[in-house]
């Protein structure tokens, strides 16, 4: 037992509890679960985006890249900034279109927009295939962070299993409300 373990455990339990609490007061249906009833406020979206940016790559990959190679790591700052400039023009029209047609997912959007169920299936398959290496990377990083921060008391494999179960549990219960939940005040 060492000093870091209670903090790691408390953080995991807090994330789990807040993830479950995020469901409170919501009449949970598919629209609430996937897109939060299409009623996210500015603060909620801001926290979602912040959570999206601060990944394992930010903590391990980015800092390691900067330490090893130096200035080329600055590209991270540039692409993040420019991606949001593009998003300002691209995403609101997609959001409006999706609301008018009551769409829930990216593949829904392509099915409706291009009137092709096949395209929707292909988009869904590409999404899943692209998510797998991303998830592996994130969980691998989570394992390394917990193993190092806990001075080896929790093995990387065990940390990954605990992390995967915690995330799967609160996402299944609260959907998109759970994903920014651990960091956000409720805005609605």
């Amino acid at each position, binding site marked *: 037992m060492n000093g870091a373990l209670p903090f790691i455990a408390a953080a995991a339990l807090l994330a789990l509890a807040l993830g479950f609490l995020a469901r409170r007061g919501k009449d949970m249906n598919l629209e609430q679960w996937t897109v939060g009833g299409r*009623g*996210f*406020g*500015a603060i909620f979206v801001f926290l979602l985006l912040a959570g999206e940016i601060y990944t394992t790559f930010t903590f391990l990959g980015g800092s390691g890249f900067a330490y090893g190679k130096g*200035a080329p790591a*600055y590209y991270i*700052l*540039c692409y993040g*900034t*420019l991606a*949001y*400039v593009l998003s*300002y*023009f691209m995403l*609101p029209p997609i959001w*409006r279109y999706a609301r008018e047609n009551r769409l829930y997912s990216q593949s829904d959007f392509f099915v409706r927009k291009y009137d092709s169920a096949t395209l929707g299936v292909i988009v869904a398959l590409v999404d899943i295939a692209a998510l797998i290496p991303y998830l592996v990377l994130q969980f691998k990083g989570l394992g390394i962070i917990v193993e190092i921060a806990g001075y080896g008391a929790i093995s990387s494999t065990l940390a990954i299993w605990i992390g995967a179960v915690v995330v799967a549990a609160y996402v299944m219960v609260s959907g998109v409300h759970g994903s920014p939940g651990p960091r956000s005040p409720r805005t609605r």
Partner: protein
Amino acid sequence: MRSIRWLAVVPFLALIVGPFFVNRATPLILGVPFLLAWIVAWILLTSLIMAVIYAADPANREGEP
């Protein structure tokens, strides 16, 4: 007022073309290498530019989030 949207090109020029001309470590600004200071400054300026575009954009007048 839609033409004010073209201001959004400025961050691209500053962050993609700019580094070719300011790719140096000196002079240090607040102890930070010049290139990093340039990029951080433009991140802040980009927020300002987007705030101006948002305020001027008629698409945001519909009372929708």
